[in-house]
């Protein structure tokens, strides 16, 4: 269970932490706790996987080339096709969704040529035709969710 200080910590620093000398000391000062206490909490939140990491969030463009792709997989082939898609090192997310196009995955590669080759390989191995939907513009503001008392804690 998260306590009040945990919630303040998440609320205060999920969008950004101080980029100054001794950032953890500065975070502790903001929260009115000691630096040791803060580091202890950060470690616990990482151990409990409440935090996925502390550090930079890189833009997708960093990887070179990326795309969102989908396959329309017949129900009886889902497990088999998931194994083939997931085995592809270029795939970093793969979700099953309720739709005719039911398997959605993000591919990233060093360049466009390698990206196209990876998707082609998936199409050949699965014998399914992919919907290839590369990003054209991003209307991204920030990724962050309120973690106040209305968030139902999973732990």
């Amino acid at each position, binding site marked *: 269970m998260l306590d009040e200080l945990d919630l303040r910590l998440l609320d205060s620093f999920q969008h*950004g932490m101080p980029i100054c000398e001794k950032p953890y000391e500065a975070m502790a000062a903001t929260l009115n706790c000691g630096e040791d206490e803060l580091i202890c909490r950060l470690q616990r939140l990482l151990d409990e996987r409440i935090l996925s*990491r502390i550090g930079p*969030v890189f833009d997708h463009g960093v990887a070179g080339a990326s795309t969102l792709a989908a396959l329309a997989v017949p129900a009886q082939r889902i497990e088999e096709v998931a194994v083939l898609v997931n085995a592809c090192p270029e795939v970093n*997310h793969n979700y099953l969704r309720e739709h005719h196009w039911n398997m959605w995955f993000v591919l990233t590669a060093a360049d466009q040529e390698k990206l196209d080759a990876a998707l082609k390989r998936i199409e050949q191995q699965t014998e399914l035709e992919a919907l290839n939907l590369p990003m054209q513009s991003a209307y991204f503001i920030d990724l962050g969710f309120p973690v106040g008392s209305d968030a139902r804690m999973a732990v």
Partner: protein
Amino acid sequence: MSDCISLSDQPVDPTLARRLIELTQAGLPLVDDPWAWLAARLNMTPEEALLLLKQLQANGLIRRIAAVPNHYRLGYRHNGMTVWDVDDARIDELGHSIGSLPYVSHCYQRPRREGWPYNLFAMVHGLDATDIEHYRYSISAMLGDACRAHEMLVSTRILKKTGLRLPPPASC
């Protein structure tokens, strides 16, 4: 013309940027001075490491430096990929509005395909199924006449999820 050169104008050596990504993509260590830790591995001073991070943030390679929560563990287990067939002439204006909604994590323009008329994608996250249905209706109301058709593809299973990993260098 201003004499001031902004951080984003200063080129960053791609090899150095890559090395920084490799070192920090799994997270910074919980040590008193994480920049000194980073600097030692990049053969530079902590001040230079800090400046490099600020440059990368200014030029957009780094979106933010933060304590990144795992939203699934915080209870945000429901996500819907909402897809919209939106008037091309208005997509930038509408995309920015939708992208700034607090429950939308990603909002992108993508190409239409045969049998796939949707050009605007917005990922919504909620604590339960009712939440995301509600968000979908709110977006629909915002788009109004500019939207011809839409759907929400609810995720039923995560098949694979790994953080952003750098592909091997282009030489291999």
